[in-house]
């Protein structure tokens, strides 16, 4: 369960197996149906780029969900980051200062989420529902209920493929973050503590795990990653948009859970979350390429979420 299986390599036992199978099946289907457009390498590159925001946020959400929490404020955090950075840039700050400030602000918001669940002991759902609303308001207020149109000074290079390559730097950033996240989760004490708290908080406390500190760190990490996702979003939008990313939280949570995590904590994997995030993009892109109407696309997305989850149940049952 915890990614520490030391026995033989049995991929069908892994959390990311069901979503990966679903992904391949869906991908193959779309390639079959639209080989000339969907099957092109540049389309793959585009889809990878479109996934970066959700993927980066999903890495943070994986930690939060494994730890037994949830973060509904991630969409608002992403929007707030685009606004803060655009606002700073407009004020004439240098790019690094603006970026760091943006990330620092949402990291602090994440830490506050963590404080709410620990010091005030309110359920994470409610704490982050509250901060989702508050941060959305803050973003709108800071931006004067408008898009902030600043010169983003080359930030868009993050999501623009270089002259001689296919993939923009942002995709590599996301991959790097995912790898670092996976290492943190599986090979450090902090990561094991995250699993332990999600699995049984009382036990973890009894074992001397610094439960409060770990939780706050996890939420702060989630915030920091939402901040980086926000930078990608700003690089894409080129304006600071306070209404941006409404509902992103559900996409991110869906990606993580489709990727095999359990909302009751103690289970989940970063690989699975990435696969889940990419699966969503594939469905969306494939539907557009086939000219499938929006409403069918909605229904397909839902059906595929359910299929992946049902496949995952099957894995769990057979591993008993």
């Amino acid at each position, binding site marked *: *369960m915890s990614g520490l*299986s030391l026995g033989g390599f049995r991929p069908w036992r892994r959390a990311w197996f069901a979503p990966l199978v679903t992904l391949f099946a869906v991908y193959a289907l779309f390639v079959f149906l639209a080989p000339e457009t969907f099957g092109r390498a540049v389309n793959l590159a585009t889809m990878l780029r479109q996934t970066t925001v959700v993927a980066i946020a999903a890495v943070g959400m994986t930690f939060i969900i494994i730890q037994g929490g949830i973060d509904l404020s991630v969409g608002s955090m992403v929007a707030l980051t685009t606004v803060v950075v655009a606002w700073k840039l407009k004020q004439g700050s240098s790019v690094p200062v603006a970026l760091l400030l943006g990330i620092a602000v949402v990291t602090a918001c994440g830490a506050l989420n963590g404080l709410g669940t620990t010091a005030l002991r309110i359920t994470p759902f409610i704490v982050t529902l509250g901060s989702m609303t508050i941060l959305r308001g803050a973003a709108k207020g800071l931006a004067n209920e408008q898009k902030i149109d600043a010169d983003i000074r080359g930030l868009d290079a993050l999501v623009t493929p270089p002259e001689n390559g296919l993939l923009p730097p942002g995709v590599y950033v996301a991959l790097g973050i995912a790898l670092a996240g996976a290492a943190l989760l599986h090979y450090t004490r902090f990561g*094991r503590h995250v699993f*332990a708290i999600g699995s*049984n908080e009382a*036990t973890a*406390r009894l074992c001397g795990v610094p439960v409060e500190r770990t939780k706050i760190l996890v939420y702060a990490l989630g915030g920091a990653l939402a901040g980086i996702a926000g930078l990608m979003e700003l690089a894409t939008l080129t304006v600071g948009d306070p209404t941006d990313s409404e509902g992103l939280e559900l996409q991110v949570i869906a990606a993580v859970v489709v990727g095999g995590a359990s909302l009751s904590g103690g289970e989940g994997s970063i690989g699975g979350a990435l696969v889940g995030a990419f699966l969503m993009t594939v469905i969306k892109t494939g539907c557009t390429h086939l000219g499938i109407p929006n409403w069918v696309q909605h229904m397909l997305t839902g059906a595929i979420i359910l299929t992946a989850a049902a496949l995952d149940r099957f894995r769990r049952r057979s591993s008993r």
Partner: protein
Amino acid sequence: MRTRLAVSGLAKTFGATRALVRVDLEVHAGEVHAVLGENGAGKSTLMGVLGGVLAADTGTVLLDGEPFRPRSPGAARDAGVSVVHQELAICPHLSVEDNLVLGREPTRFGLVDRKAVRATAEKALREVLGTAASRIDPASAAGSLSVADQQLVEIARALAVPGTRVLVLDEPTSSLAKDDAERLFVLVRALAERGLAVLYVSHFLDEVRRLCDRYTVLRDGITVGSGAIADVGNDDLVAQMAGDRSRRTTARAGDEKPSARTLGDVVLTASHLAGTRLPSDVSFELRRGEILGIAGLVGSGRTELLRAVFGLDAVRSGTLDARAPMGMLSEDRKGEGIALALSVADNVTLSRMPAVVLPGAQRRATEARIDELFIKATPEQSALELSGGNQQKVALARLLHQGADVLLLDEPTRGVDVSSKAEILALLERLAAGGKAIVMVSSQFAELVHACDRVAVLRRGVLGPARPVAERTEAMLLEEASAP
């Protein structure tokens, strides 16, 4: 005598684990039948099959000559088999009385008949608790009761089912105090007299000897022996359970006396410690190399004493001087003891980990503990898949791995089989000899007398003086604990 329940050739596998291989069992009406075996032998799995929780792979069960294959716990109960499972089954948010009638709520005009609920609840509690029934308020939330009282509520629930033909009790006394257990024995005998067949799982051989008529021993999922209790000695039973496994070093029984140990400096001092509710006045001093036992009745606040000392509960007044790191083992195995979803390796090493965790090293450390405590598990197995006794051992292994100098143990041997219990007590001896200081709470006063250097009695939150164990017997402890 009439055969009430006949089990033959029963097998059950969980993935690759063969929990039951070939179980045969015959229980007569009117008898109390002991089911014995080491941790992980398959006792609870068998009870699960009888109770309709698990479906057997092969084999047959006959109930009064009729094939019996319950498809759900409800069906088993309706067919006359009611079960008290090893793991606590309580809805913490519901009141005690709602728990007692759960699944069989009496109704009037389609609405729950509160009066009938209350009457049923009070009757059931009185049956199990006798005059002590007043200590449980039927209207209070079940989650606020102590583990022992929750266990009693569960027993009362099973007994309250009308039309029961077979009563299954899976380690009912593992968290009960002496007087509650005694009352239960009387009750069980009376039920058997009335013609019920009772299946009784326990690791306490004395108890089994007093209560049961016949026995069946399971080893690794196979019936290896059965007969009348009166015909076998305890050693014989233990040998049947352990089989040819040579790990039992009975030779160690020789070096058990604590006299050889030298006491070190004081590491823990409590003076007039009081928690928010319990305990109310606790003073003691603990040295390295010493095992201090705490005896007391259920509800005397032993658990809360340990929690207050460890810092889990708030301290209202008094002082506590801890000069060495502490580790604690909870009596609530599922709630605080282990993380069920994690692997055995993660559970064991959780309390002390390097900043970077290497799977190989983690496995090696775990394997050492598995050998030390005879845990029937592999490091990568999920703790969920272990038998109750093995889970308890994992919790203990975790504490040992932590390596704290002061160990606070709340019912450390709960649910552990006979041979392992001796091993664990011997291990505690060795730890103390190695310079650790141990506080041990146990409802088994005999165990305290056996393992501790000094024992103190906790009565209604007030801790008496700790006296050397040489001056005390089980009976004296009981007398002091239950003095008015």
